């Protein structure tokens, strides 16, 4: 018998093993749902599949007679817009600050402690301040996401850039590269794959801040909707929304991986034998 350490599943087996926990979760839900409904046909906590399907039909395929829009589409567009703007701002800031902090000792001495301090402030604690300063509109929500994810992304990228082998930086200088050219041609290209990785890890907190902000003050958005229908215990709406949010998050993650592989083949190239 081979050791468990050395046994690895084949492609088909891997697919099955990967799907098994998800299928098990769905199966357990169905069992629990039907058990509760056998006891109490008006149970709202674990709605049966038919009820969820009806809710999906109303939310995702029929226009709301009041607004004339399909709720799921309107919510998704609003949320993704906020997320996209915040991600662009956070990523650009991270790239700029991360490179400067990682490469330039003077910037590190000046801004390093500041960034380290800001990154330990719980962003949600700053939400009231943001609402007071920026009002209840889009700005406060976007700023919350930016404030929430940027400091950690900056620190991660600065660490990565700072960990570039000293040999490389010296070599570039012996080739005549100025500070600017070392940044542009040596540090920046090597920072980009890491920037994508750190963004991937920051997407989860970004969603948390987005949904928090929408839950507190908004009139459209995925987070707004689930916290709105929570008042009516509408699990048949909340569950598909949560599933939809996870699908969006997974799709973004996969897209970032694909982007990194396409744009930076050197970071994923096979090693010499």
């Amino acid at each position: 018998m081979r050791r468990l350490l050395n046994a690895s599943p084949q492609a088909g087996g891997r697919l099955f093993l990967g799907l098994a926990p998800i299928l098990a979760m769905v199966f357990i839900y169905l069992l629990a749902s039907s058990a509760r409904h056998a006891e109490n046909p008006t149970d709202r906590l674990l709605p049966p599949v038919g009820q969820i399907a009806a809710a999906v039909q109303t939310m995702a395929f029929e226009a709301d007679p009041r607004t004339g829009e399909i709720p799921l589409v309107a919510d998704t567009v609003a949320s993704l817009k906020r997320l996209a703007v915040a991600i662009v701002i956070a990523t650009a800031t991270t790239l700029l600050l991360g490179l400067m902090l990682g490469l330039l000792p003077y910037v590190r001495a000046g801004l390093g402690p500041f960034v380290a301090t800001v990154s330990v402030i719980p962003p949600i604690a700053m939400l009231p301040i943001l609402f007071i300063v920026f009002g209840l509109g889009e700005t406060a929500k976007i700023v919350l996401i930016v404030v929430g994810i940027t400091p950690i992304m900056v620190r991660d990228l600065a660490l990565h850039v700072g960990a570039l082998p000293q040999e490389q930086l010296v070599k570039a200088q012996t080739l005549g590269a100025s500070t600017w050219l070392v940044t542009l041609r040596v540090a920046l290209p090597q920072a980009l794959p890491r920037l994508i990785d750190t963004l991937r890890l920051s997407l989860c907190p970004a969603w948390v801040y987005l949904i928090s902000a929408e839950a507190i003050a908004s009139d459209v958005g995925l987070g707004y909707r689930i916290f709105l229908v929570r008042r009516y215990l509408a699990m048949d709406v909340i569950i598909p929304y949560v599933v939809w949010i996870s699908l969006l998050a997974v799709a973004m993650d996969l897209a970032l991986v694909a982007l990194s592989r396409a744009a930076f083949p050197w970071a994923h190239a096979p090693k010499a034998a």
Partner: protein
Amino acid sequence: MAAPTALSFQDVWVEYGDKIVLEKVTLDVAEGSFVSIVGPSGAGKSTFLRLTLGQEAPSRGRVLLDGERLRAEPGPDRGVVFQRYSVFPHMSALDNVVFGLECARAPILGRLFGAARRAARDEAAAMLAQVGLTDALDVYPRELSGGMQQRLAIAQALIKRPRILLLDEPFGALDPGVRLDMHALITELWRDHGLTILMVTHDIKEAFKLGTRVLAFDKRRRDPQAPHRYGSTAVYDFPLDDKAPGAVPAELAPLAVVEE
């Protein structure tokens, strides 16, 4: 040898606080010489190299390159090949070499276009051919073997036509067979380009095989109570004008044993 002095160390000291790493280093390196530097670990070989590279400034004394005081900063007049990490993983082999040309010719954009780009690429390809990498122009360094990466690092340094080429244990991580090929290559390039080379190595046979002069760094004096209070210097200085192969002098034999 009546060759002019390329590099001159005049009573150079390197100290960190009360720790003395190098003391009273005074020596001249003639143009066109191949100087091997050996010595036990912690004898200041690397500090000596960093001094020449400009990564470090002397705390006392002067380092002169062609009679002028060296700036304490790496520059294009001194090329370097380290044991590892000398090449840029995100550039193809050709781009690694072209980069040196782009730094000089495109200081703002860092990239050349059109005819200038083609000329630079041709120049770089010719340099890569000289180190035997004609077939690997478009591969990334991590797809190259260790020996080929070092060939690339040498081509990259030579494209700048440096006054001094510094080699920091360049063949230390290579297989014995590959190492022999690299010895032949570096000797050939040294002759063809009329290079002045400083090479730090742990391999004392390599030092005598390649060098026209061997410097052994060690402490001249030792204080058992405060070993850090005495620095190292070049305790042996062997000119090898006849280049007699395999002639490791008896004084250095113990050193060789320590390093093996």
